[in-house]
C-alpha cells in the first residue's frame, strides 16, 4: 500500500499556518520516533489524570481481503485477544484488568485499531502485552472455532437482525462492483464459517508486522522511559514483507443503481450514497464542510427541510468517512411511518440540487467551519480521544500535524468550492439508492 501524503498540488492550504494556542500546546508535546524495524511511535504526554491510553493502528482492513476470506480482518481482530507466546489464552485481558486497565478494538474497511486505557503504572505491562501479540500470536484451532461462533453471533446482531445493517450491506454491493469496499467489514456469513487457521497465519505474517503499525501513547507517563520500554519490547520484532498493493479496479459508474430490502418494519427508510474521492483528495475537506452544512444540528439544511419543514423524516444523517480509496458520501433518512420514499427522495434531491446550483449562504459556510473546529477540540479532551484523533489523522492525512491544522485548511474553503463539489459528486450518475420496503408485521 502506498503511504498516504497530503497532496502537494493544492495551493489553498497553508500547512505552516499558526495553530491556536491550545492546539499548539498539544503539538509541542508530541514526540516522534521510528524503530529500525519500521514501527512508528508517537508519544503525547499530559498529566491531567493519572491514566494513559495506548493505541496501535495497523494499516489493514477488509480492503486487504479477497472473496472467500471476507471478514478475516475482523475475525483476526478478535483472535488478537486469544493468547500469544508469553501471555496465553485468556491472559491478555486478565493481565490488563488486574493492572488497572481495559481494552478494545475495531476494524474498518481500511484499518484495524487496538487500544488500552489504564492506570499509568501499568505502562510497561501494556507495552509487553501488545508487543507479545504482535511478535508471537498463537492461533489455536480451539480458540479459532470458539471465536468464529462469537463473530457469527455479532453478525446476527449487527446485520441479520438489524435493519440498518441489512441496508448498508446491500448498499455497498451497489456502490462498488470490483473494489473490496464491496463486502461488509464483518464478512459474508459463509466466509466467516470457512476461514481456516492457515488463512489466519498467513494474514498475521503479512499484515501484523511493525512496519505496518503505528503506536500512539497519550497520558501521564515519562516519554523517555516509555520510549526505552517500547524499544526493549518491540525492538526484537522483525520487519515483515512489503504489504501487497490493493488494486482499485473499480469501473466508472454509468448511471443510478437501485435495490430494495423487504423486511418487517414500521416505516420505510432510505440509504443513498454517491461515489466520492479518496481521503487524501483535496475535495475531501470540502465534502466535510458540506456534510456539516447538510446534517449537523437542527439548523442544518436537510434536518430543517426534511424533518422540521416538510416532516417527511424522523431523522437525517450524512456520513462522509475518509477512506484510502475513493469512498462514498452517504445520506440515511429514517422516514415517518406512512411517508412516501419517492416523495422523500425527490425532496432530498431538490435540496442537494440547490447546493449544487447556488452553494451555501455565507453564514452556513462559517457555521460548518466553526463546528468542525469545535469538534476537533472535543475530540482532544481525553487521553483516548487525543491518541485516536492524532493517530487517525496520521493514517489518513499522512501526518498528525495536518490533523491539528485542519481548522485553518477548512478556513480556505469557499462557498463556490462547496457548490462545485456538490455539483461534481452528488449527481444521479454517481448515485446508489437502497429503499427499505416494510413488509407486514406479524
Amino acid at each position, binding site marked *: 500500500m502506498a503511504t498516504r501524503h497530503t497532496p502537494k498540488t493544492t495551493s489553498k492550504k497553508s500547512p505552516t499556518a499558526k495553530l*491556536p494556542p*491550545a492546539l499548539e500546546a498539544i503539538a509541542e508535546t508530541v514526540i516522534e520516533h521510528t524503530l529500525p524495524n519500521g514501527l512508528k511511535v508517537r508519544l503525547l504526554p499530559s498529566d*491531567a*489524570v493519572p*491514566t494513559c491510553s495506548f493505541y496501535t493502528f495497523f494499516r489493514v482492513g477488509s480492503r486487504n481481503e479477497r472473496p472467500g476470506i471476507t471478514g478475516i480482518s475482523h475475525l483476526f481482530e478478535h483472535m488478537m485477544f486469544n493468547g500469544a507466546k508469553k501471555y496465553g489464552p*485468556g491472559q491478555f*485481558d486478565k493481565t490488563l*484488568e*488486574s*493492572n*488497572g*486497565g*481495559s*481494552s478494545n478494538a475495531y476494524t474498518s474497511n481500511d484499518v484495524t485499531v487496538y487500544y488500552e*486505557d*489504564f*492506570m*499509568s*503504572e*501499568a505502562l510497561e505491562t501494556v507495552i509487553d502485552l501488545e508487543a507479545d501479540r504482535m511478535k508471537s500470536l498463537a492461533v489455536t484451532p480451539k480458540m479459532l472455532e*470458539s*471465536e*468464529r*461462533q*462469537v463473530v457469527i*453471533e*455479532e453478525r*446476527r*446482531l449487527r446485520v*441479520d*437482525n438489524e435493519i440498518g445493517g441489512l441496508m448498508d450491506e446491500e448498499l455497498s454491493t451497489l456502490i462498488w462492483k470490483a473494489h473490496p469496499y464491496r463486502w461488509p467489514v464483518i464478512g459474508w456469513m459463509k466466509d466467516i464459517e470457512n476461514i481456516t487457521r492457515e488463512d489466519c497465519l498467513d494474514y498475521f505474517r503479512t499484515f501484523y508486522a511493525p512496519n505496518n503499525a503505528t503506536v500512539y501513547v497519550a497520558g501521564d507517563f515519562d516519554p523517555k522511559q516509555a520510549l526505552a520500554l517500547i524499544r526493549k519490547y518491540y525492538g526484537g520484532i522483525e520487519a515483515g514483507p512489503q504489504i501487497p498493493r490493493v488494486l482499485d479496479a473499480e469501473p466508472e459508474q454509468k448511471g443510478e443503481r437501485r435495490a430494495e430490502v423487504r*423486511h*418487517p*418494519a414500521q*416505516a420505510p427508510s432510505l440509504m443513498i450514497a454517491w461515489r466520492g474521492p479518496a481521503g487524501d483528495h483535496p475535495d475531501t475537506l470540502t465534502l466535510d464542510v458540506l456534510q456539516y452544512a447538510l446534517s*449537523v*444540528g*437542527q*439548523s*442544518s439544511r436537510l434536518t*430543517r427541510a426534511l424533518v422540521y419543514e416538510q*416532516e417527511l423524516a*424522523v431523522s437525517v444523517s450524512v456520513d462522509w468517512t475518509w477512506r484510502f480509496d475513493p469512498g462514498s458520501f452517504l445520506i440515511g433518512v*429514517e422516514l*415517518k*411511518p406512512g411517508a412516501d420514499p419517492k416523495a422523500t427522495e425527490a425532496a432530498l434531491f431538490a435540496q442537494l440540487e440547490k447546493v449544487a446550483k447556488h452553494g451555501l449562504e455565507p*453564514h452556513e459556510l462559517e*457555521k460548518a467551519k*466553526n*463546528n468542525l*473546529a*469545535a*469538534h476537533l*477540540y*472535543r475530540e482532544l*479532551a*481525553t*487521553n483516548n480521544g487525543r491518541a485516536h484523533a492524532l493517530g487517525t489523522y496520521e493514517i489518513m492525512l499522512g501526518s498528525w500535524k495536518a490533523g491539528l491544522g485542519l481548522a485553518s485548511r477548512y478556513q480556505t474553503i469557499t462557498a463556490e468550492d462547496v457548490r462545485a463539489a456538490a455539483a461534481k459528486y452528488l449527481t444521479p450518475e454517481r448515485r446508489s439508492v437502497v429503499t427499505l420496503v416494510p413488509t407486514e*408485521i*406479524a
Partner: protein
Amino acid sequence: MKTVKRSGIELRPLKLPHHDVRVLPNGLTVHLIPRGPLPLVAVRLVTRAGSVFDPAGLLGVGDFASRLLRRGAAGLTANQISDQVEFVGASVGGFANEENAIVSLSTPSQHLESMFEIFAKVVLEPDYAESEIELSRRRVLAQLSNELDDPGSLADRALSRAVWGTHPYSHEARSGKADYEAFQRKDLVAFHQQRLGPAISHLYVTGEFKAAKVMALVERTLGGWKNGPAQAPVIPTALGIAQPGEVIIVDKPEQTQVQVRIGAPGVKRGHVDHFPLMVMNTVLGGGFTSRLVTEIRVRRGLSYGAGSGFEMMSAGGAFNVSSFTKTETLTQLLDVALAEVKKMKSKGPTAAEVATVQRYISGLYPARLETNEAIAGALADVVHYGLTDEWISQYRERIAAVTVKDAARAAQKHLFEKDRVIVLVGNAQKIAPKVKKYGPVSVLKPSELE
C-alpha cells in the same frame, strides 16, 4: 509524588479541580469548576423534576416539555435559536430522565457569554408555541413507532415495565402513544411553572472561564428566576420487582436471534453495600474477563456480549443481566447465566478475582473525570444523591478497602434467588415452548409496548 497504599494498590492522588459553590438569593445553587486547557465550557442545569413526577395520563410530559425548551423562547424562534447556537459550534438542549430534568449547553469558551444568555432564555421563557408542540408531537409519535423495530430497545422497555410495575420509575417505559396524544400546551406550561424552579435546581459550569465573570453572568441572567417548588419532591420507595418469576416474550417472528434480559431487585444509590456490590458485580458481569463473559462468550461462543449491572437511583434500584444468542441456543445461555448468578450468590468471588477487579475499577476511575461534561455529571450525582465530595476523591480507596468477605456477603444478601423476571425478544413460536421451565410465560406484541 505522594501515594496511598492499600491492598497492594498504589494510587496517585486524583487532582480534582477547584469547585466553588454559591447559593443565589432565589435559591439556585451554582457550582463553578474552572479548568483548562481546552477552550471549551460545559453547562448543566439539573432540577429534581424527572419522569417519576409526571402525572398519570401525561407520562413523558416532562421530557417532552424539556426537549421543547429550545424550540422558541423569549422572542427567539426555534430557527433563530438553532442558527445562533449552532453557528458558533455550540449546542443546547433539554431532556428528562427518571429523577431529573436536565438542560445543558456545550460551547467554545469565547462564546460562553452570548450562549449562556440564550441558555437562560430557553430555561426561563420558553414559548411552547402550538405549532411547535404539534410538530414535535408528530415527530415523537413516529419515533416511538420506529423504535419498535429495534430488538434491544424493545427488550429494555419490556424489562423496565416488568421490574417497576406501577412504581413511578416505570413512567419512562410506560409513556406511550396515548400520553403523547394527550399533551396540551397548558400541561407543558404547568411543567415549566410548577415543576422547574431555582430552589430545587443546581447549575454546574465546567471548563475554561473566569469564575468571577461567570458568576456575575449567572446572577444577571438567572438571578431573577422565580416560581417552582420550595423543596424537592419525594420519590416513594421502590421495593422488590413487579413480576417476579415470570417469563415475558416480545414476539418478533423474523428474528434469528433472541435478546435476553433478566431483571431483579437491587439497591438504591449510596447504599452501605455500594462498594462491595461494585466489586462483586464487576467479577460477575462487569469487565471483559467477568464470569458471564468468560462462560457465555469465551468458553462457549454463545454470544458476542454478556454483562450484569446495578441500576441505582434515589429510592430504589434494580439488578439486571443482559445478553443475546441465536434462537437455537437460548436455553443454554439462560442456564449458564442463571447458574453463574447462583454460584456467585452462594460462594462469592475468589480472592484473586477481588484483587483483579479492585485494580481494574480503581485504575480506570480517573478516566471517568476527563471531560467537562463528565466532571459536571459526577459532581451533579454527588449532590443529587446526597453524597459527599469524598465519594469521588475517595472512590478508589473505598473500592480498595473491600474484602473478599464483604463481597461474598453482598452477593449473598443482594443477588436474586427466585424473584427475577426474564424478558426475551424473538420468535415466540419457537422459543415459548422451551422456556416454560423458567416460569409462567406471557407473549406480547411489540405494538403493546408503543
